[in-house]
């Protein structure tokens, strides 16, 4: 395709004429068009209730303040992309959403994360239950090495001690939803490590789905993958978005434009990372309100 793609870690075939012509000239308008080409979900009212709300989140590593005052709502059935340059606190932010942040020694936070209206940081909360409801897919595919494909998918049940009557159905359903069933149905007893990188990542998605999370956090899920695999993951995300709230961190603005309904732009300008702007994806890419957002999405920095 185009050789001067400004963001070549995620270049794909089969995106159609319109897209490839846009990619020749990196511009906010081009991204906006990509974003506009996707039918976006914008919840019309508060009737359904907010699934996950972050209220004034701050984060520290030791004394270093890395994230300041981020408030964001994530509505059921939507995909929210978090974009921004490296070190702006995107990953830290999503790790506060399922309490993975506290694994880093010296970590501290402030603010509230409300899941169905309850603060997940409230004293006495069962952390493992939170993580069951808010699943996570990591940057690098990490299937459990000692387990087969089938065991990997069902690992969550064992780990969280969930009783499940019909495991085979669940196995098929999860692999189906992750778009992997057809590729692996004949070798469910092979080791997870025998799959390609992209397949492994979809296996990890299937693994997360098996415990039926309400929200799925994805921390740059495609950064270690080739373009073809990235495309497959993006398709999977599109299919999943109707049933699971998805929050995806990405360095790739094209990807944000392609998969998300909402985009939030994070930036750390010397101090702690902040959320500069948030809005429907096509608006962010076509009419950014903030100058810094515009500079970033037009490729002037970052």
């Amino acid at each position, binding site marked *: 395709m185009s050789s001067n793609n400004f963001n070549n870690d995620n270049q794909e075939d089969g995106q159609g004429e319109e897209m490839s012509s846009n990619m020749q000239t990196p511009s906010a308008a081009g991204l906006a068009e990509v974003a506009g080409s996707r039918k976006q979900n914008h919840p019309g009212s508060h009737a359904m209730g907010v699934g996950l709300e972050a209220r004034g989140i701050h984060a520290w590593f030791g004394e270093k303040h890395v994230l300041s*005052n981020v408030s964001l709502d994530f509505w059921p059935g939507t995909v929210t992309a978090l974009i921004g340059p490296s070190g702006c606190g995107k990953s830290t932010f999503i790790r506060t959403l399922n309490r993975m942040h*506290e694994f880093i020694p010296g970590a501290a*936070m402030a603010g509230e994360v409300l899941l169905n209206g309850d603060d997940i*940081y409230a*004293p006495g909360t069962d952390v493992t239950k939170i993580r069951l409801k808010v699943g996570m897919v990591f940057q690098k595919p990490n299937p459990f090495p000692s387990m087969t494909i089938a065991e990997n998918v069902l690992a969550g049940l064992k780990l969280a001690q969930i009783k499940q009557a019909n495991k085979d159905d669940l196995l098929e359903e999860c692999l189906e939803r992750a778009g992997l069933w057809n590729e692996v149905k004949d070798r469910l007893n092979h080791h997870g490590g025998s799959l390609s990188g992209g397949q492994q990542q979809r296996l990890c998605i299937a693994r997360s789905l098996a415990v039926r999370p309400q929200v799925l956090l994805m921390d740059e899920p495609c950064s270690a993958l080739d373009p073809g695999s990235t495309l497959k993951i993006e398709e999977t995300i599109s299919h999943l978005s109707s049933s699971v709230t998805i929050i995806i961190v990405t360095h790739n603005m094209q990807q944000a434009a392609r998969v998300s309904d909402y985009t939030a732009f994070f930036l750390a300008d010397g101090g702690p990372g902040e959320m500069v702007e948030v809005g429907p994806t096509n608006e962010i890419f076509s009419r950014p309100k903030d100058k810094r957002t515009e500079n970033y999405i037009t490729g002037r920095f970052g």
Partner: protein
Amino acid sequence: MLQDSGVSSVQFAPIDLDKVEKRVLTTTPRLSDRIFRGVVTSGGLSSLIILGLIFVFLLYEGYSTLHSQGLHFLTGQNWQAVVDDQNRFDAVHSHFGLSAMLIGTLVISVIAIIFGVPISVLTAIFLVFYAPNAIRKSMVTIIDLMAAFPSILFGLWGLFILDPSGEYWAKLIHKYLHWIPFFNMPKDSLYFQKSPFIAGLVLAIMIIPIVTSISREILSQTPLDRVQAAYALGATRWAMIKNVAMPYARSGIVGSAMLGLGRAMGETVAVFTVLNIVYQINWHVLLSAGGNVASMIILKFGEASPQEVKALMAAGLVLFLVTLLVNALADAIVSRTGKSGR
């Protein structure tokens, strides 16, 4: 806030950062996790408990000797358990002084270090910077295998194979280097076999695996960018090793030598097998007489009276504390490697 209304009011409201309070992350682990952490922690503390118990019990058994002998236990030169005619222990005439064996331990270990460490370090350098891959892999395996050899094998080998040819070398050293006090021999004694020199050589061989493998590990951690920077400045391999690798690894190598020293000091069976154990202070390393604390314990233990056993326990306590000290120093030095900003 994804609604058009209310978005900006939440996130762009000016905030006073000083007022933000860090939340206490109240993770109350489940019962299963608390049990797990408890079990693992108590298992992890086993080394502390065992070392503590070793100290307590050896002190308990050896206390009476330490108390009656006082400082003499470390400085005294004779070890005599005297019994009277009714075969009862005679506390007044018995003397337990460890100095001959302490000095013997030191002499043998130092010989082991003098021969063992240079060979080990040079071997480590060869393996890291010179050896082709295949040779490196097989050499590492062979040297690691050597670490698993039983010590009595080293002892028997030292006695039956090394000692006869070592005698020849000892005579040679004596002939040409007798003006150095250590290599001198007392008058009329020309018995060169089973000497501290030979025992030191055996121990030198025994510490090669541990010193080599630690030095190798530390040398191989030399930052590659520094190595390449040196080569890019036109350094020969020797110049690179001297100016980049050795400064980086120096303290680690010293630490590995200390670890080797600790091993050499505590060795029992190999020294017992090779050395002609005589209870006297002997600085003539080529003379067939010497000993170390560990080998003396196993030698005397068989026919020791209960009181002498207590003295041997005290000797064991001294040996334990000395090796612990040497190991502590070694550990402190090794873990410093690379941290100082060279």
